[in-house]
């Protein structure tokens, strides 16, 4: 198999939009990816032909929508190679998944227990653990980062002890694009008996993940960053680990029997899916995975790596430009600043020329504090980006710099 970027690109209607008189150059894929027509159609089709509440009615439509929803779950299970489909819990997204674990796993923690996160985490993988520090008196330890944006593995090893109950770590830094060698981290954490949660929000849009090979206990991601809709995501957990946790929210669907004296809980995955879920979101996320399954993901990765390489080279030719996070193992994300220029000014002028990038702290203030900077300009590629997008970026950036200097 190979990869035809023009053909894939044509499946994304929004990429034909114009921003003023400029064609859209969408380079903010770290924030969210665009959706192929087939996913948009799945959403429309659901409300046109399938809409009914799931797991409840005996009527035809309820069975149709339940089946579509459960088929989506199985598609996702297969894509990440989970052992059972009930190990895939539908959530609202990465943030929701982390909060679920913080709540349910946190219930079993005691004062003095330790949780390890890293210096590269998104605020979503910091704040929920800080709640536990306040509520339970657990200790939060942070794996330090190095100048090149990678993590200090030896420092991590020194943090591990019998008190470590959980390692919650991002696979890829959304702010810098650095890929953490999580296999090593998972193995080391397991040796002291700790469980591991992987924040895969940034990973699945770039490459495949096999949760059994990784051997992580939990993994979370958002649908909207992998060509699916917003408001839906997945918490993967090993069956034994999920069964050991108390439920998160109470409500319909998550119960077996309810009396005013005692309620018994439903089995996985329903135990963690209280209330009517984002049915259309789940179904369309399944469609996004089916769509992605047809791609040659190795070729996609090679294409994105090429964009990363040529952009990095072109950017470094610009006077005073500094890239943050230049460790060798990177996904197609580049965070940079230009001497004396404010990222918001550059972002605004790029936007005027149709180029969509992210500016600011990217919900990772600790990384910005580490480098003593207010924020960066972040360019993040996806599979539908082309070399022509790179040229547009560089031309627009040079123009912005000329105006501002």
């Amino acid at each position, binding site marked *: 198999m190979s990869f035809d970027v023009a053909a894939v690109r044509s499946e994304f209607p929004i990429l034909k939009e114009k921003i003023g008189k400029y064609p859209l150059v969408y380079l903010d894929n770290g924030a969210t990816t665009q959706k192929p027509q087939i996913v948009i159609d799945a959403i429309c089709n659901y409300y046109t032909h399938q809409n009914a509440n799931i797991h409840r009615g005996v009527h035809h439509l309820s069975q149709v929508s339940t089946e579509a929803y459960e088929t989506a779950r199985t598609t996702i299970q297969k894509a990440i190679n989970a052992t059972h489909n009930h190990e895939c819990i539908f959530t609202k997204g990465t943030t929701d998944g982390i909060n679920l674990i913080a709540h349910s796993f946190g219930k079993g923690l005691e004062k003095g227990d330790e949780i390890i996160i890293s210096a590269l985490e998104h605020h979503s993988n910091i704040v929920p653990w800080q709640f536990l520090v306040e509520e339970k008196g657990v200790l939060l330890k942070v794996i330090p980062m190095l100048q090149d944006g990678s993590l200090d593995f030896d420092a991590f090893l020194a943090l591990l002890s019998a008190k470590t109950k959980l390692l919650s770590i991002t696979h890829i830094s959304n702010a810098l694009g650095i890929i953490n060698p999580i296999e090593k981290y998972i193995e080391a954490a397991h040796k002291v008996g700790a469980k591991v949660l992987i924040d895969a929000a940034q990973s699945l849009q770039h490459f495949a993940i096999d949760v059994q090979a990784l051997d992580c206990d939990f993994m979370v991601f958002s649908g909207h960053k992998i060509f699916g809709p917003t408001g839906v995501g997945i918490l993967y957990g090993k069956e034994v680990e999920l069964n050991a946790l108390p439920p998160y929210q109470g409500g319909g669907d998550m119960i077996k029997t309810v009396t005013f004296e005692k309620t018994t809980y439903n089995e996985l995955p329903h135990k963690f899916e209280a209330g009517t879920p984002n049915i259309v979101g789940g179904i369309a996320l399944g469609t996004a995975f089916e769509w992605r399954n047809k791609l040659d993901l190795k070729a996609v990765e090679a294409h994105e790596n090429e964009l990363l390489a040529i952009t990095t080279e072109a950017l470094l030719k610009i006077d005073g430009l500094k890239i943050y996070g230049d460790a060798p193992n990177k996904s197609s994300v580049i965070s940079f600043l230009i001497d004396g220029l*404010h990222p*918001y000014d550059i*972002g605004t002028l790029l936007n*005027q020329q149709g180029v969509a990038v992210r500016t600011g702290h990217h919900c990772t203030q600790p990384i910005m504090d580490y480098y003593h900077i207010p924020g960066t300009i972040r360019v993040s590629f996806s599979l539908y980006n082309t070399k022509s997008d790179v040229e547009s970026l560089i031309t627009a950036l040079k*123009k912005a710099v000329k*105006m*501002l200097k």
Partner: protein
Amino acid sequence: MTIEEKEKELIADFSIYEDWMEKYEYIIELGKDLPILKPEHKTKENIIVGCQSQVWLFAEKKGDKVIFTAEADAIIAKGIIALLVDVLSNQTPEAILNTELNFIKEIGLQEHLSPTRSNGLVAMVKQMKLYALALKNS
């Protein structure tokens, strides 16, 4: 000059530019020309909350007029606050409180700023009006 006269002047200034890149070029020039704020006024208390870049605004009364001085760490924000200072500085508190600042819409500034920046613009105007209110009876 009254606020309305200042606004008319600005609308005329902007009307000669055809595309938004040129208008930005003009805003950037205004930003570069904005005199720097006295260090004693560049304090945490004078930072306007609600802007994505840091914007400092100071106001004092001279006679019956309010004098604004401002600075920002991003040039475009500086250019925008310079426009507002140009229109609203050296006016009476009553005039500042009563103006609707139609020029913002007229020159299309609001829609051409990203939502976060546009919030910054709203926050800037609000802060200037709050100063006018505070200085009204002083």
